[in-house]
């Protein structure tokens, strides 16, 4: 293609980057504003809002609550997802395509419907809205992702590694824990971080399945309904930072050969 179109392409790309970053940058910037009122003009800057977030016990405990949910749901998703991936890659059986579709089903159910159906289901199972319900809801949402990532990785595992282990006397279980699992680990760490991010960021499931104690997105949502405040900006900026670090780490692990 000509140099001309290449230049246009490049401009479109950077315009897209700006489009993505301007709203977030503004949000971070507003967190430094020395006023209760969100919007322009900004007259003076302060760190007070950030300091406030770090000192606010309530917000810290919400962070903690969100993290607990993220870690627990991710742990469940990793176990189930790996298990399902092992079944779908290592065994051949009738109905495999149907099972694959069922395992990955939550990935294509629109968010609100997923949340509503889980709310109804947990009610009929006698699980009250609260931490347990949220953890299970997030796990249901994360399993397809872990399954897909693990399957991709398992498909690239040389069959001879598994055969060599069996040849040397390992049964199926020992082979899994000593050979296959170590091979999966980088992919699982990457997938796990993404599941934690998804759980940490999730609003709709947390909102419908949660009890009185809010997760961070639910808390921010509630705050927003009463009005904008630089405090929310500061919280959001902190979340953004954590998210970016986690995401970059996961990306590195997932792309590793």
């Amino acid at each position, binding site marked *: 293609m000509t140099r001309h179109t290449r230049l246009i392409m490049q401009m479109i790309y950077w315009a897209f980057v700006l489009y993505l970053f301007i709203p977030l940058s503004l949000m971070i910037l507003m967190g430094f504003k020395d006023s209760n009122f969100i919007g322009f003009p900004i007259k003076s800057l302060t760190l007070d809002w950030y300091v406030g977030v770090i000192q606010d016990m309530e917000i810290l405990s919400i962070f903690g609550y969100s993290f607990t949910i993220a870690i627990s749901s991710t742990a469940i998703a990793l176990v189930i997802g790996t298990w399902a991936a092992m079944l779908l890659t290592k065994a051949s059986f009738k109905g495999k395509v149907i099972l694959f579709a069922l395992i990955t089903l939550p990935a294509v159910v629109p968010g609100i419907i997923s949340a509503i159906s889980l709310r109804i289901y947990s009610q009929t199972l006698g699980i009250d809205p609260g931490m347990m319900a949220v953890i299970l809801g997030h796990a249901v949402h994360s399993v397809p992702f872990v399954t897909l990532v693990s399957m991709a990785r398992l498909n690239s595992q040389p069959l*001879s*590694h598994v*055969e*060599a282990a*069996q*040849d040397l006397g*390992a049964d199926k279980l020992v082979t899994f824990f*000593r050979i296959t699992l170590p091979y999966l680990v980088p992919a699982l760490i990457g997938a796990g971080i993404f599941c934690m991010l998804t759980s940490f960021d999730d609003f709709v499931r947390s909102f419908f399945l949660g009890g009185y104690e809010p997760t961070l997105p639910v808390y921010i949502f509630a705050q927003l309904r009463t009005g904008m405040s630089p405090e929310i900006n500061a919280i959001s900026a902190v979340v953004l930072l954590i998210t970016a670090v986690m995401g970059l780490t996961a990306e590195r692990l997932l792309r590793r050969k």
Partner: protein
Amino acid sequence: MENSTIKLVGLSKHFGTIVAVEDINLTVQPGEFVTLLGPSGCGKSTTLRMMGGFEIPTSGRIYLGGDDVTDIPPNKRNVNMVFQDYALFPHMTSGQNIAFGLELQGKTKRETAQRVDELLEFMQLGGYKDRKPDELSGGQRQRVALARALAPDPRVLLLDEPLGALDAKLRKQVQIELKSIQKRTGKTFIFVTHDQEEALTMSDRVLVMNEGRIEQDGSPKDLYSHPETRFVADFIGETNMLECTVSGIDGKHVVLDWAGTELRGECRSAMPATGQSVGVVIRPENITCFPTKPKSPNVIKLKILQRVFKGSSTTFQTVVDESKSLTVTLDSIRAEKISGDTMWVHLDPDYLSVLLR
């Protein structure tokens, strides 16, 4: 207990309608170095994998030291395998790789460590215990794989084209090493390869396989000098294939008509019938040559078309007449004595093998 290490009886393997291996019978003596040789897709790897327990035979039995192991899974068979790609566990060091099989035999830490050190020493891998496979050279990886497979002290060691990944120069060296390791350990080796040179160099016994069947089973020398089928003659080494008709039997020799030239050849299997069309083979280097006509049967005058100097030997492309050609290989020293564009050759009946198949 029987005196054989591994014994295959009527072993067959079909994948759907495709016949991979058909009715293989084989008895291997302790300490033998047996090679399954054949082109890709001939069933040699499938046969090996059945011995290892990775494929379940469609029919037939496998005996290991007299016990029927046909239905025993690989992890409970006292047989170990060296894989084509070595299959070293990438997340473990060489030491841990070698220790893997020992740990699964329930050995204590000290026993394991001792055996690992012993094997590393034996394979001249002394300083490489803590290296991961990707920090080793191809040859070193191959030796770690060998040590790992030998560690649990298997009754039979199976090797699935383990030299394929090495470059040509290293391969020659490793062939000699491998043979010497086999001699020193006294283990039974069953080796699979498509490389005839590898097979001839290392083995005590070679089985040439084609389309799932054994074509010929014999010593390397036998196979080379006395091929029994056209396939074996063609697959191993360079050869002259003479299309002849049988004109009679003369004692232990078969009288042949090679498009007008009478020859005497040797037939190791059943004698052919008169009038039958047969293939007759002779290796280019088994043809002896004379500057003038000697006094013996099986002598032909050849017209030299081309001579190719190959260092220690020289190859002649020659013809008898328009329809018959021969390739002759001579020591370069002898070849120098041949001048002009004709020569006399003697086709020794003992090297002129008559093939019925």
